């Protein structure tokens, strides 16, 4: 998702209906395993218990406190880790591209980012229990060596703060992977021109580099938001369903109809899809804007 697609050299070929047969297996697959399940959920979200058309499910979505709170919590966690991970990831990407760090650190960090952004779910939750759990390594270290008791200070791994700390582990590496190519796209000529025209380093960053990078930064943060919003396994492995984010609620609805209304469950799933779709649309729009300057 980090790369941009370069338009291929379009060669005019006389294409007729026959050529479409070549791609039928792919479209058939997409219909069976992507479109059909989605359509089923959309349809279900507009049906009441008796199977008649209704908008009630969507009205209930906004009037059921448990669901509204789940969305709120999910959006908060996703926004906090997208902004936090986005800023920290950007600073790291800055450090290894234009920050003047040795070349070897750059490739080490990029490989590590690839690993960390893929290292998620159950093992990640366990790693953080061993680190920041009640008897975790860091918890005990801070307590014994520095006399800081995290848990007495109100921290809890099985809470908003804890889950955010864990999500950060895959959020900022993803930001690094997206921002490194963008920062590489900053042209040396722009910096030299600014320098020769007497701009200060700060002016160069605030008036040239950041405005050019801003669409990429915002786009990447939106991607991070979606990345956290759709996450299920990490939260489930950590809390076993005690932290009621949207994905956990949907999981409970799949296991057994906890809302006592299948239609409401489908509407809840659709709400998620809509938020993800808006994020992706925002991302691809910003991606286009950023391509104006960066390649």
């Amino acid at each position: 998702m980090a790369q941009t697609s370069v338009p291929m050299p379009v060669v005019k070929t006389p294409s007729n209906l026959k050529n479409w047969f070549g791609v039928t297996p792919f479209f058939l697959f997409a219909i069976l395993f992507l479109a059909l399940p989605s359509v089923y959920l959309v349809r279900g979200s507009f049906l009441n218990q008796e199977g008649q058309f209704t908008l009630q499910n969507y009205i209930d979505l906004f009037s059921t406190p448990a669901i509204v709170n789940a969305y709120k919590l999910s959006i908060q966690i996703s926004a906090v880790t997208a902004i936090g991970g986005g800023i920290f990831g950007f600073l790291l990407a800055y450090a290894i591209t234009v920050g003047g760090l040795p070349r070897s650190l750059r490739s080490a960090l990029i490989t590590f980012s690839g690993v960390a952004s893929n290292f998620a779910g159950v093992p990640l939750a366990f790693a953080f229990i061993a680190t920041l759990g009640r008897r975790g390594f860091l918890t005990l270290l801070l307590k014994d060596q520095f006399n800081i008791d995290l848990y007495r200070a109100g921290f809890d791994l099985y809470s908003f703060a804890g889950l955010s700390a864990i999500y950060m582990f895959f959020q900022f590496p993803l930001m690094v992977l997206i921002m490194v190519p963008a920062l590489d796209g900053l042209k040396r000529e722009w910096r030299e021109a600014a320098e020769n025209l007497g701009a200060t380093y700060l002016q160069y960053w605030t008036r040239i580099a950041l405005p050019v990078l801003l669409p990429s930064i915002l786009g990447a943060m939106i991607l991070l938001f979606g990345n956290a919003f759709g996450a299920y396994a990490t939260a489930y492995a950590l809390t076993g369903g005690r932290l009621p984010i949207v994905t956990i609620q949907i999981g409970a609805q799949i296991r057994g109809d906890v809302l006592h209304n299948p239609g409401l469950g489908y509407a809840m799933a659709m709400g998620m899809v809509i938020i993800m779709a808006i994020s992706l649309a925002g991302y691809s729009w910003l991606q286009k804007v950023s391509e104006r300057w960066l390649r």
Partner: protein
Amino acid sequence: MNNVSLDSNVAQEQIEQPKKRWSLVRIGARFWSWLWFILGAIYFLVPLYATLRHSLRMERDVIGFKAYQRAFEDPSFWETFLLSNMLAVATIIASIILIVPTAYWIRLRLPEARRITEFITLMPFVIPAIILVFGLIRIYSAPIGIPFTGIDLLQPLTTTKLGTYALITAGYMVLAMPYMYRSVDTGMRTVDIRTLTEAAQSLGASWFTIITKVILPNIRSALLSGALLTFAIVVGEVTLASFLGVNAFGPYLFLIGQHKAYEPAALSFVTFLLTWVAMGLIQLFTGGQGQAAGAH
């Protein structure tokens, strides 16, 4: 930059000064860069160190590999791990069979299908795993028939083991699709498939021969990076596996995490090493920026 003037002699002196300041600021920037880098390294390494440390302390007052030994002794570990690997291989092979000819055909003959195909391959970002499995369960736990006729073509997939494996493989293909398609498409961009195809055709090769003997070998590094990424996604995957009731490695790890203390840490560390191997190989084969996927 409205305060800049170039047309006077004074300007020359003014320019000298900021230049000096820039080099000073750059030294400052390097300091901050090191700081960010060290903070990032700490965030990466401390959880891994804590996991490793925990996994080595199963026996009181002894540092040893007892937890690893116990974890590997459990036959369920091997069963689930083997199953996950087989599902990963099945997903990779089926994805290649589905995506390579499609991407090839679109580049060669059907550029107008490009937009819609790219749109479809992005859909898994809009439909998270939990929603996908929701829909898949509702559709495929009922008999599959021709709409409006009442004729059943297929028994519900979720009632048989083989059917469930087929369904979860399809689900994993969907999750891996954005990465696989992108890898393959990028691979094809770098080779001139049109010329290769014409050359092969003029030598009398069939479509099957062209794809298996000409196109596939030419995009092997792209295929490999797509395959390794798919592997990294599938082997530890939990969401689809647990809802479809497949005894894969992810649900197993979750289960032993509920009532064991040291073995889960050991297996988590092993999973981390596996992910590292996969990503390291991708880096090695593509020399590229690295990629991110993941079922969080």
